């Protein structure tokens, strides 16, 4: 699971950095109490060494039969980068008392730190989950290959960190 996630992160980074057009990606995961969620998001290109947040221009999350859209976000939903490394997505919808509150939270320094949360407006976030980011094939093949070559190292680094942590 870890390797898939970190590889996905590398892919995502590659797409984001190298694509000449708006990128779009998917994510999926399970909560700790075994509920599944999935979705997609997109944002405009950022520089290859970008650090900071970029606003999402597209977002969709399916959870417990509900769809959460970009317009549901309580604050601008963003993708996060540190020196070009993708850290995850911040999305929060905590102002709808008719359905679960949901949140995706990006990491501080690694996409490994990203997680999902759900709960309710009144009771706060009661459950967490792990999220995996995957790409969708919308970019040019040539760019993908280039990006993969350039950022394989990032994925490796992420793997090493994961290993050290579990040791």
């Amino acid at each position, binding site marked *: 699971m870890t390797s898939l996630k970190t590889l996905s992160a590398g892919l995502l980074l590659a797409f984001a950095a190298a694509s000449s057009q708006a990128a779009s990606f998917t994510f999926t995961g399970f909560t700790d109490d075994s509920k599944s969620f999935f979705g997609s998001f997109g944002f405009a290109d950022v520089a290859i060494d970008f650090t900071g*947040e970029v606003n999402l221009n597209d977002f969709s999350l399916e959870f417990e039969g509900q769809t959460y859209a970009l317009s549901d976000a309580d604050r601008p939903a963003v993708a996060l980068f540190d020196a070009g490394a993708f850290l995850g997505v911040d999305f929060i919808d905590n102002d709808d008392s008719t359905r679960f509150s949901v949140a995706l939270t990006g990491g501080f320094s690694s996409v490994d730190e990203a*997680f999902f949360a759900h709960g309710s407006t009144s009771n706060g976030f009661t459950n967490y989950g792990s999220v995996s980011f995957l790409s969708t094939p919308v970019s040019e093949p040539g760019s993908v290959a280039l990006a993969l070559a350039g950022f394989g190292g990032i994925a490796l680094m992420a793997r090493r960190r994961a290993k050290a942590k579990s040791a």
Partner: protein
Amino acid sequence: MVGQTTVVPGVVTRINSNGFFIQDLTGDANPATSDGLFVFTGATTYPAVALGNLVRVSGTVAEFSTGGSTVTQLSNVTAVALTGAGFSITPTDITFPETVEGELERYEGMLVRISGPFTISQNSFQSRFGQLTLAQGDRLEVPTNRARPGTPEHTALVEGNKLRRLILDDGSSLQNPSTIPYLDANALPRAGDRITGNLVGVIDYGPSSASATPGDYRLHPTAAFTYVVANPRTAAPAAVGGNIKVASFNVLNYFTTFTNGQNVAGQSGQGCSEGASVNAGNCRGADNLDEFSRQRTKIIDALARINADAVGLMELQNNGNVAAQNLVDGLNQVLGAGTYAVAPLPTNGTGSDAIRTAVIFKPARMSALQGISDTASINDRPTLLQPLQLHNGERFSLVVNHLKSKGGCSSSDPDLGQGCWNIKRTAQANQLRSFLSSQAGISGAAQLIVGDFNAYAKEDPIDVLTTNGFVDLVERFQPGAHSYVFNGEAGRLDHLLASNSLAAKVIGAVHWHINADEQPQADYNRELKAPLTCNGAALCPPDLYGPGPYRSSDHDPVIAGLSLYKSITAGVADTSLVGTAGDDILTSGAGRRTITTGAGFDQIVFSSSFTGAATIADFAPGFDTISLRAPLQALGVPLVDPITQGYLSCRVSGADALISVDTDAAGPAPARAWLLIKSANCSVLNRTNFVF
């Protein structure tokens, strides 16, 4: 009988300084009459008088006037004949408390046994008269400290106190003896300490206070007894909570000009000002530099241990800010330069009495705005209103009072159960109300009234405040608490009263019992203490002075904890949350943001919508705390000890500490990164820094 010459047989049960008690060997079996008698011998001694001797005393029956009543005794003794030895009288067990005041009369002169426990209610006359005021059961409380005068509850307390009270006497008419009777090491006992067992001794009647009248029944013990420390000294006042600690302290005439005409600067021919006159006779404090040094050491120690952010003081010499500054200089020598400052003199001045009130404060915690005093002619000392502004922008006014004392009645304002001058004090309290309503603009309605009101908690001057929008904070947290002991009864003259809006922000209030319960012989004064002589060439009682805070004054200080945080709550879209230079409560929920606390004591509180992504830029251990209570509770994490139990973890991330939550600790769910504490290592994840 009175005036008759007679011969009385009896066993010697107790020998006093000026006579002895005898008791009939068999008694008359009539419980309504006493079987004992005091034989007054003055300075004459008789060889036959020894404990257990059966004697025949020739003398004249007399009624001796004492304590506003009379006691039957044998005087003009002409002979004491020995008729036997080795007798012992079995003490009569008596019912106590009395069921009717005066019931003990029937036991006058008799050897009795009274079952305890007893509480020492007053030790003020221990050194001078050899007396301790006891109460069976708990100590005596001033009835008007507990109940409004005239109410049935008040009447019951007055009666109950009379019935429970008993004077323990040393059987000596000598004042200020070289040895203080019933004194343990370390100037014990304190009022509030206990005698747990029975007391055995002879019942007598005589003065019970500083005055010749009224008297009360007293016991001259014939058997040893022991104290139990039931009211121990504490090294510091109890914690009061909140972020701002405010104290009120009557510092017992802190004068930097002495009664000998010298002053602390070493000048001679100085005087103290009172009304239009300036002379040394107006000085009320230390007699000389030596006494002042002793006084100063104790007051500074007490104030340093209280360590309040602001203190209202009473009984400072009214010499501008000289006396107050002298006190602050001494405090800063102990606590560090600049720790305290004296608030500038108020608009309208400090009045013309010999003493004044003042405010000292910690500049690191607040600043003093221009104060104002109320010089209305009804006030003996002007009320001082000192607005204080915390560095987070919050304000309150510390209002310091010293109302007319209870002593020295005039016929126009007599003692009708609330001390002399109750009418005047009540008028002063009403003046205070009108002054405060006129000054609400300075600090809004946040007014904390402190001071020595010379009125117990349920007396009229306090009542007119508590029935008009002010809250008696001590009553709220410690009903019945005391700051002063008088006539054997404890009550509080020193109060903290908050306006309604401020009262909601007061977390706690306590009196610190360092003075009222202590032996007066331990104060800074040199009078009536060895090495001076008191009875001819005999040394006065020992000087029990010590440098600590105990008996630094005659009043106990009173301390309140205020929660005057600036509350700032981040909106969900905020990317930063920035505190003030003072004490803040910074609340943050969902959303990625950086929290900068600023200086002061700050509480970072994460709400239940928190889902990580918080960065704390300037966490200061010892000043700031992080509350993760709400999000942990939402996640169902036990709040007992989430660090030790593995729900929270930390790893170093660059120069920072990354705190993660693991909702099932050792279970399958992984830890999730929650908050990044900049420039910290993982020792930051410590119970002292977190609130759960």
